[in-house]
């Protein structure tokens, strides 16, 4: 009985602070474009940004709903609030939290799991932030030099194939059928309209990838 009361109090407190920090972080984030536009006295017209904002919202907000539902039970309350502010959940915070709970031999959604997961994700967030900050201060001058170098400059023109080839290889290997169908759909769409923006093409590829994945899951091709 005592344990139930303590559990309730602690989780309630984490959720209360988590809500306050999330709202605070949201305000701080919105201050970034506000400060940029105010400082440079350069406000874009609302009509100019409505279209891209609408497209990005449709894309990212749907993914956000799936991510919040999928990751919250695994990360615990404190870990979830921290992870969604600091980002890089799939590639860093989630494995870090799960790894720490496994090492400490505790389970997610218990008080012990909550403590270990939050400590791990907090340590991960601080480390990542500091490493990126230190790196940016060192990388900053190098980027300017490379961009203006006639030999290195062409590489920037092909940075997207390099990035998404490297990033996608692992996913493609693990989900070969879904990947092939989706890339083929993208290529075929571009046959009809080669200069169709990636922002629009993404809607085609996401519908195809999720649709084909669900179909293959139902047919038992994906387990």
């Amino acid at each position, binding site marked *: 009985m005592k344990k139930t009361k303590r559990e309730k109090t602690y989780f309630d*407190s984490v959720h209360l602070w988590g809500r306050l920090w999330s709202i605070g972080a949201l305000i701080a984030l919105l201050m970034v474009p506000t400060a940029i536009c105010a400082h440079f006295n350069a406000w874009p017209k609302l009509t100019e940004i409505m279209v891209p904002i609408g497209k990005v919202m449709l894309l*990212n907000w749907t993914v956000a709903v799936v991510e919040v539902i999928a990751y*919250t039970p695994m990360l615990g309350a404190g870990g979830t609030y921290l992870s969604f502010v600091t980002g890089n959940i799939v590639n860093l915070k989630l494995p870090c939290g799960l790894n720490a709970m496994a090492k400490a031999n505790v389970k997610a959604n218990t008080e012990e799991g909550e403590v270990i997961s939050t400590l791990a994700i907090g*340590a991960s967030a*601080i480390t990542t932030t500091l490493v990126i900050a230190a790196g940016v201060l060192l990388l900053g001058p190098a980027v300017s030099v490379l961009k203006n170098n006639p030999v290195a400059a*062409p590489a920037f023109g092909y*940075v997207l194939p390099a990035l*998404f080839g490297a990033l996608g290889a692992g996913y493609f290997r693990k989900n070969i059928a879904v990947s092939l169908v989706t*890339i083929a759909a993208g290529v075929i769409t571009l046959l009809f309209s080669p200069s169709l923006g990636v922002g629009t093409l993404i809607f085609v590829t996401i519908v195809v990838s999720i649709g084909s994945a669900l179909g293959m899951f139902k047919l038992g091709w994906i387990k």
Partner: protein
Amino acid sequence: MTENGDFKTGGFMYAVAIGIILVVVAESVFFMVKSWRHGKKLGISKETMKNTIFSSALFSVAPAISILTTVIVLAGALGIVLPWIRLSVIGNLAYETTATKLTLESLDSRLSLSTDITDPKTFGAVAWVMTIGTSFALVLLPLVCKTIQKKVGGALQKNEKTSRLGDIISAAAFIGIIAAFVANAINGRQTKEALTIGDAGFMSICTLVTAIVLSTVLETLCEKKNLKKLEPFAMPISMFGAMGVAVVLNLVLPEAVSTLTWWGNVA
């Protein structure tokens, strides 16, 4: 209006970045202190908690370097500070790249990720789209996190099939994003008006294939030889390796080949 892109890396932008980073660090410290105190009440040993912090920090160094190297992708257009801010909060490279490209396409079809943005209005527009586009989770969490943890969490843990379906949809959505960029490298062009470097052709295919092959080889090597330390570097090595191949090919190949796209040669 500023005529060059220097404003993107000026003192003001660094001040904004430091402000945001302080918020992130403060929140992390707050929750860690709260958890540490509660851990002591629960009887979790100090050693266990210290080990958790230390090993998680170590665990995060290499992936952080990997995230850092990807800042360079957006730095070509946006300077280094805004990508730094974005990849320190909520940021995810695929989403940020998509938001940037979408905004640039929408404002001016001649702009791309390799164009140095010199107009603060365009820069501000990108910052707005990136911020609003990725902030929904922060709106959603205060409303639903508690309910999900209590109800959905339990249900998902009990029902493995539902949990697996969530993983599949999440992975499929990510494949959808990546596939759009891959298809664009195979068969897309940036504008109708003129051919530009980066349009699909010989070089884009070579760069794409090199990145995929390098990444596959390195990831397979890590799996087979159990090279855990190399794992986080596989992606950045592959990306920079492919960019390096693009530079070398550009130097050694005849111009007629290196500028070849599927619609003719870049002038």
